[in-house]
């Protein structure tokens, strides 16, 4: 059964409101939550599990958990994003625990990988940033992606998009300013 895209809810509906609506069985709210968070959950799962197939399953399990446990969300305890992050992290940790592979060798050298606390911090930052990117319009998201992750210089981005370099810079600044607005609490 394919679900229709959620068109009925205003974009400004907060995550917390969507969770509460989902708790009441509102599928449109659930679908909007999925639109907002599928990519952040997938990113978090990929980072933790390192395998696309397992990460995809973790996304499904996360949203199954969200649907099941939406009723336990208490808006007076905080906004929706941290609650969703906790649900996702638990689902992903559960999946990671199911791994049965045992490392063949114990490394002699101490690992230079980030420790658990750093990993958690990185995970949360990525979660918030990827979630915020979903709020940008198509043109803003495109220019940010090209500028930061394509390896192209801003001149090459301008050539690629067929727009003046000045427009690329203006659009990039506008996109970053919008992200700053969305990521408000990251600046506190």
């Amino acid at each position: 059964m394919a679900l229709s895209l959620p068109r009925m809810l205003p974009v400004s509906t907060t995550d917390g409101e969507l969770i509460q609506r989902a708790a009441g069985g509102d599928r449109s709210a659930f679908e909007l939550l999925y639109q907002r968070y599928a990519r952040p959950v997938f990113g978090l799962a990929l980072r933790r599990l390192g395998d696309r197939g397992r990460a995809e399953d973790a996304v499904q399990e996360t949203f199954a958990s969200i649907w099941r446990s939406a009723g336990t969300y208490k808006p007076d305890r905080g906004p929706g994003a941290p609650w969703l992050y906790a649900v996702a992290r638990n689902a992903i940790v559960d999946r990671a625990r199911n791994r049965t592979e045992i490392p063949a060798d114990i490394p002699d050298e101490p690992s230079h990988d980030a420790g658990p606390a750093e990993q958690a911090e990185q995970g949360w930052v990525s979660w918030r940033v990827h979630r915020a990117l979903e709020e940008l319009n198509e043109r803003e998201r495109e220019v940010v992606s090209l500028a930061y992750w394509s390896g192209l210089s801003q001149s090459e981005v301008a050539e690629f998009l067929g727009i003046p370099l000045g427009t690329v810079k203006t659009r990039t600044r506008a996109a970053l300013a919008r992200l700053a607005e969305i990521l408000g609490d990251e600046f506190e």
Partner: protein
Amino acid sequence: MSFDDIVGTEGLSREEEATLRRVHELLVAAGPPPDLSPDLSLPPVPAEESDPPEVAFLLRRRRGRVAVLALAAALAAFVGGYAFGHSKGKPAAFTSIRMVAMHGAAGAPAESHGVINIAEKDSVGNWPMLVEVSGLPEQAKQSSYYELWLTHNGKAVAPCGSFRVHGKTTRVRLSVPYALKNFDGWVVTTQGPDQNGLGPVVLTT
């Protein structure tokens, strides 16, 4: 790439520059968002509100095709289950909490399909299942049979019971003690007396 390369500072107030610089650092720290595969393009499908949570989602891939099969199979299972439940040798009631649809694997008859109805785990940890398969050819030999398996990473790893088929549709009750969440699918294989190990897969999720 640096802040100066991407954003630049020309014409920005000190405050604006500080704000954009912070966002720049967060973007660099976060890295690119991953591409979603087509399997994740739509959310999982919540079931009717009255259903228990476990049946609320189709966790398997190929959701669209499976959903169509599931719908057809559900109707058949309902009708069949009613007849099954009201036959003379009336077995204990079977209340499905989760349904998994299967379709024919490569090489299997085109019309072959199946559905696994799973009931609530019993008090000692077994999952009762009502398995219904259709379109599979009857066994060529008396000692041939079909076997249901749970898969992990696409490989059949845990046997869930064997059965023979007769006629167009066959329903059998099986039970497994495994933690189902540790597996990623199901397959049915054909097994025969000449078979060493796993036989060919005829149904898969």
